[in-house]
């Protein structure tokens, strides 16, 4: 190790400790690297305690868990019964449909919206105007969903701004009570998500656009390309890799349709279409005390997320785009 510090080769230290035996590694760790150990172990402990220890609780999904019995092995093991209940007895399929639908709506609206806004911002030459619009567009991202849900509910109320505008345009005669309409709920979620996230979403696309070689634009101009052609043939291909990476990351979160916005915006008539997996878990777990069923739903969610992540990642590799994992 002493040598590796003097050697400036980047991979030297790694090669060195690969050759070490286990005992040598342990000795090095406690003699030469104890400071690194001291700086990382306390936080590693936190990660294990709060992220890995709770995985133990997944056993509940395979039991008919009853509170009060202390030893986890004294519970009654029921195999996959809870998962069967989830799909064949309870209306979990409805919850699943809600989750996937809202997730896809959010993904499509959010991605297309952010890319479009980024393209438009990229075309602005006046720097002050561009920066001002950008700063303002980040505002909703910094609001909590509690605040945002209150604002959305106010805007969509019978005397809210949306109804006022629609009436003044002459498109409707009577106010629409948006939040009480079950068939409008997914749209409300989609657009409030778009409102909250579109500005923030542009950040990564804009930075990818600023990395595009300006010579390409100049060459295109000499060839007589107009603005739309330059956007289509240079800017969009230039951010293709970024789009793919972000899509992969987001598809890995397909089962996270969100919890807060649905929970806070749902009303009596919309509950059937508002319930996502997370709300379902909360309902069964905390309110009804059916821990086993709630945990089974949670496991299903995590498993699908990870499977999707690997699937999309493999697909992206195959079509020759950059991959994540």
């Amino acid at each position, binding site marked *: 190790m002493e040598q590796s510090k003097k050697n400036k080769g980047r991979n030297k230290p790694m090669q060195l400790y690969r050759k070490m035996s286990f005992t040598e590694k342990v000795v090095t760790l406690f003699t030469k690297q104890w*400071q690194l150990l001291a*700086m990382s172990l306390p936080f*590693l402990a936190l990660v294990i305690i709060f992220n890995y220890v709770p995985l133990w609780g997944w056993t509940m999904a395979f039991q008919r868990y009853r509170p009060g019995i202390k030893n986890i092995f004294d519970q009654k093991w029921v195999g996959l019964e809870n998962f069967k209940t989830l799909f064949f007895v309870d209306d979990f399929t409805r919850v699943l449909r809600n989750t996937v639908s809202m997730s896809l709506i959010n993904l499509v609206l959010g991605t297309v919206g952010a890319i479009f806004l980024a393209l438009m911002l990229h075309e602005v030459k006046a720097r002050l105007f561009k920066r001002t619009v*950008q700063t303002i567009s980040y505002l909703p991202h910094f609001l909590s969903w509690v605040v945002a849900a209150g604002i959305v509910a106010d805007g969509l109320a019978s005397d809210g*701004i949306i109804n006022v505008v629609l009436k003044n345009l002459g498109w409707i005669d009577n106010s629409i009570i948006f939040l009480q309409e079950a068939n409008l709920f997914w749209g409300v979620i989609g657009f409030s998500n778009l409102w909250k996230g579109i500005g923030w979403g542009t*950040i990564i696309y804009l930075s990818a656009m600023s990395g595009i070689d300006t010579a390409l634009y100049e060459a295109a101009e000499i060839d007589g390309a107009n603005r739309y052609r330059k956007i289509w043939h240079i800017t969009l291909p230039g951010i293709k890799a970024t789009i793919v990476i972000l899509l992969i990351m987001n598809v890995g979160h397909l089962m996270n349709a969100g919890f807060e916005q649905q929970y806070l915006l749902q009303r009596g008539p919309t509950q059937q279409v508002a319930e996502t997996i997370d709300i379902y878990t909360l309902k069964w777990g905390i309110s009804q005390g059916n821990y086993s069923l709630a945990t089974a739903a949670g496991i299903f969610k995590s498993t699908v997320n990870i499977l999707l992540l690997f699937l999309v990642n493999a697909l992206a590799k195959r079509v020759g785009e950059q991959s994540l994992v």
Partner: protein
Amino acid sequence: MATRTLITHKKKKNWSLENVLFTTLNTLFLIFIAVVMLYPYVNTIAVSLNEGYDTLRGGIYLVPRIFTWQNYEAVFAMGNIQIAFVISVARTVLGAITSVIAASMLAYTLSRKEYILRPFITILIVLTMYFNAGLIPNYFNIRSLGLMNSFWVYILPGMVSAFNVIVIRTYILQLPESLVESARIDGAGDFVIFLRIIMPLAKPVLATVALFAAVGAWNSWFDNYIYNSASPHLTTLQYELMKLVNSTTSMSQSSSAQHGVGVNESTAAGMITPKSVRSAITIVASLPILVVYPFLQKYFVTGLTIGGVKG
């Protein structure tokens, strides 16, 4: 640079009809976006500064019609809001500080290629971004750790964020390796290198992480709801607002109407309505962050770009 070269090129045909039309439409579109982003919040400010019963007549858009501080006075006179404000500030400040310390220390050790535990810890940290034990297992875990009804449940579980660790690590890896090497030859240990060399250079990314952590802490209410709802002395602003939003926007739901009654009682003295009080709390619960973020813009844009693409 990119824009500058383009401008010089454009000058020749800047006034072609197509260009003028595009620029005009684009500018109008962006102004529309800015208005949509800004209006709802400005409207809430206007309502919060308008006399409560007058607001019910409708027609408050950008400015208050009958100006008053009554709503804010009423809000700050509520005992639970005073407590909530203190707790929210405390968890935000402490949460941001501890998150920055945790993420920067871990990130530094994970940037040292010679560190034997580096691959192992990296995998453990990155994996936490993609799975979650779930609500119930986490609840049981927190309960068995004795963190129910405790202030620490706001700080400890979220202290190490994988995203923040990766953002800082990526930033440190971009710094010239020779800085660390020459310090080592001078006999400096990792503590000294971390504190004296890496930390001062990493200030921009630390600001980013501090902002992310502070926003997360200030805006969260679910941990309060799940773990601390039985402890009124540990309540937060977002949770108090959540209870109000749930009660005043869903009057038809009888179960939550009780909260609304509470509001009316405590504010019956003035010309105050649940809506005006809710607007005032909304502003109190969001303005502190909205005042800060524009000044940190260049930091979080860099931070997000580093972490978002390479994470």
